């Protein structure tokens, strides 16, 4: 059995770890609320954007445009959203796995990373990072998403990459976060989308409408991706810290029991020795 002093030291160390994880849990709960509100406020815009794009694609199915067909280059741009801080359970590794083992495994990739953790993991796995903009995940703004999307779109326009993908974590609810890998360009048309009753007219030419709308659409998707990921990150951290705190409590309980037992047995031993000593004198 470990000595009383060892047990005591171990218990107090776990106690202070537990305090830290508890504080972190509270912090991420607050951050999660904020991130969630932001993601929810973005939802109507993102939905409207998606609907409009689909209805335009519906009408322009015969149109040929690089945004719809992709480019020849085999290289693919991937925007990978993780975060700068660790201790969020499997949050980062799940996103990284999308790249290393998912549909794009073994392809020639041009990586745009957001979040240091994901970037470092990908570098360890032997990937080259084309552009890193980790700072924006702290407080993602629409302008940040626009700048990131512009980089990827420029690469696409110059023909360096043939497709653009986005890897992020979808925030389903507080406990369920789903890592997702979606293709941004060429734009995918939803099959069997319900036909609109009203035929849509365009003021400008359809091609130029597409030319303006698609980049906005991509930006909107990147922006929602950032917001969703940010909410997921804090949700994942909250969960991880919650289970860490309860594990710590459990361990403290076990150690307290062990400590009390050790203390009792040491008292018993001392008593036995005293009594034995007294008897020897008599």
């Amino acid at each position, binding site marked *: 059995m470990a000595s009383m002093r060892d047990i005591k030291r171990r218990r107090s160390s776990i106690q202070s770890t537990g305090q830290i994880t508890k504080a972190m849990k509270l912090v991420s709960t607050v951050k999660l609320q904020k991130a969630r509100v932001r993601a929810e406020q973005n939802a109507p815009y993102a939905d409207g954007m998606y609907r409009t794009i689909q209805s335009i694609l519906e009408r322009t199915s015969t149109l040929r445009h690089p945004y719809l067909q992709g480019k020849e280059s085999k290289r693919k741009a991937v925007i990978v959203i993780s975060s700068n801080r660790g201790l969020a359970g499997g949050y980062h590794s799940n996103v990284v796995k999308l790249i290393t083992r998912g549909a794009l495994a073994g392809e020639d990739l041009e990586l745009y990373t957001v979040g240091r953790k994901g970037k470092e993991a990908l570098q360890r796995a032997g990937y080259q990072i084309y552009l890193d903009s980790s700072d924006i995940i702290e407080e993602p703004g629409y302008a940040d998403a626009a700048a990131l999307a512009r980089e990827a779109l420029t690469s696409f326009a110059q023909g360096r990459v043939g497709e653009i993908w986005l890897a992020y974590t979808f925030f389903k609810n507080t406990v369920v976060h789903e890592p997702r890998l979606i293709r941004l360009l060429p734009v995918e048309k939803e099959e069997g989308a319900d036909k609109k009753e*009203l035929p*849509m007219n365009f003021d400008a030419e359809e091609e130029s409408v597409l030319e303006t709308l698609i980049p906005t659409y991509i930006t909107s998707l990147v922006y929602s991706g950032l917001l969703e990921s940010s909410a997921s990150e804090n949700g994942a951290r909250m969960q991880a810290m919650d289970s860490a705190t309860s594990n710590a409590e459990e361990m403290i309980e076990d150690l307290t029991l062990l400590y009390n037992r050790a203390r009792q047995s040491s008292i018993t031993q001392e008593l036995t020795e005293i009594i034995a000593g007294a008897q020897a004198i008599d």
Partner: protein
Amino acid sequence: MAEKGTIQVRILTPERVFYEGEAKMAEFNTSEGELGIYPGHIPMTVILKPGVLTLTVLEGKKEAALHTGFAEILPDSISILAEAAEWPGEIDIARAEAAKERAEIRIREHRADTDMARAQTALLRALARIETLR
């Protein structure tokens, strides 16, 4: 609804739902020029250019600065998806003036590395803000 002589207007930006309500008429700037929409308009999708949005509501007029995006017009509703929108009270006039000057200098100098389209949009944006405040 169209019968009542009003049209449902929804203005969405990535950050928030900017406005939701009825209006008798909506006017805004598009890539093809200024556009005024009354209830019962034919279905149409237009590209927005930075400019002033004027909503004629039952109690009078509402104005706001509207930046790039697009609008989906249906007989009984308008959905405006803008990258940004601001009420007059939210506009910082000093910043808008500064942005206007910066954009004007960029356009005037016209260096090889300036993105003219972006500079022009920036100028239009600043002008829209200043215009809204007047």
